């Protein structure tokens, strides 16, 4: 019963919060309409049959969010310096092929979002045949170092959260 009416509790809660923020109200009317809309919307999602996953360890997710935030602030500074520096002396931009371990779609999506949201790196392509991804880096110093950053700093933690 509860599965049928509440197939995605996290998504439903998120939609209710979104509705309340949009209305800027926590009155009973707003909560009621928000809850009805969120229930309908999350039921509509079942028609798309998204792959199932487990989302465990919210504490690990929070810790990862903090790591990503620090990294975004740091790379904003680094990319700003690169842009304002004269010429391209001593800097080389390039592609790196990174072998991945996880095949979980949620894990890969989160990884793509983290990498692309960080200035200076962008996820370009994913090859499902050999589970590798193509990364483009603005300031490429050592390719091996980037493989380690992606797999050790991000992928390992995401696998802990989603698998």
């Amino acid at each position, binding site marked *: 019963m509860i599965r049928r009416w509440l197939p995605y509790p996290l998504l439903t809660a998120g939609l209710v919060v979104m509705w309340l923020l949009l209305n800027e109200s926590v009155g009973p009317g707003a909560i009621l309409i928000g809850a009805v809309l969120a229930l309908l919307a999350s039921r509509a999602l079942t028609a798309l049959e998204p792959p199932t996953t487990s989302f465990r360890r919210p504490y690990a997710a929070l810790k990862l969010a903090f790591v990503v935030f620090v990294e975004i602030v740091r790379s904003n500074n680094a990319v700003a310096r690169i842009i304002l520096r004269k010429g391209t002396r001593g800097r080389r931009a390039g592609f790196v092929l990174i072998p991945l371990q996880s095949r979980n779609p949620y894990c890969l999506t989160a990884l793509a979002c983290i990498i692309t949201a*960080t200035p200076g790196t962008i996820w370009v392509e994913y090859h499902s045949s050999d589970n590798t991804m193509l990364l483009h880096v603005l300031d490429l110093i050592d390719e091996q170092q980037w493989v380690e950053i992606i797999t050790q700093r991000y992928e390992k933690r995401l696998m802990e959260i989603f698998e």
Partner: protein
Amino acid sequence: MIEVIEVADIPLWAAILTSLLLLIGSGLTLIGAVGLLRLGSFYERVHAPTLGTTLGIGSVLIASMLFFSVLQTRPVLHELLIAAFMVVTTPITLTLLARAALYRDRREGNEEVPARRG
């Protein structure tokens, strides 16, 4: 100069913090736009707007939240919606664009991009 009507009664610390966040955000956005113009190739340029879409708009959103919360003496948090939306959408557009550029470069036989695999 500019008329700022309602802000007369917000405390100085909030004004200083809001000003600082606004200047950081708009400065980073400007640097990102400069990079869009200055960097040499498309794959380098694709990194430049990320400054504006992460900390650029992020700082301005925090400034707006702080300003309105202090002004109306209640938490004003709806800016979080734009923040969440930017977090979700920016990677999608940039990855799509980079893939499209790669696809076009490969089809034209550009030697500078890695060849297609698998």
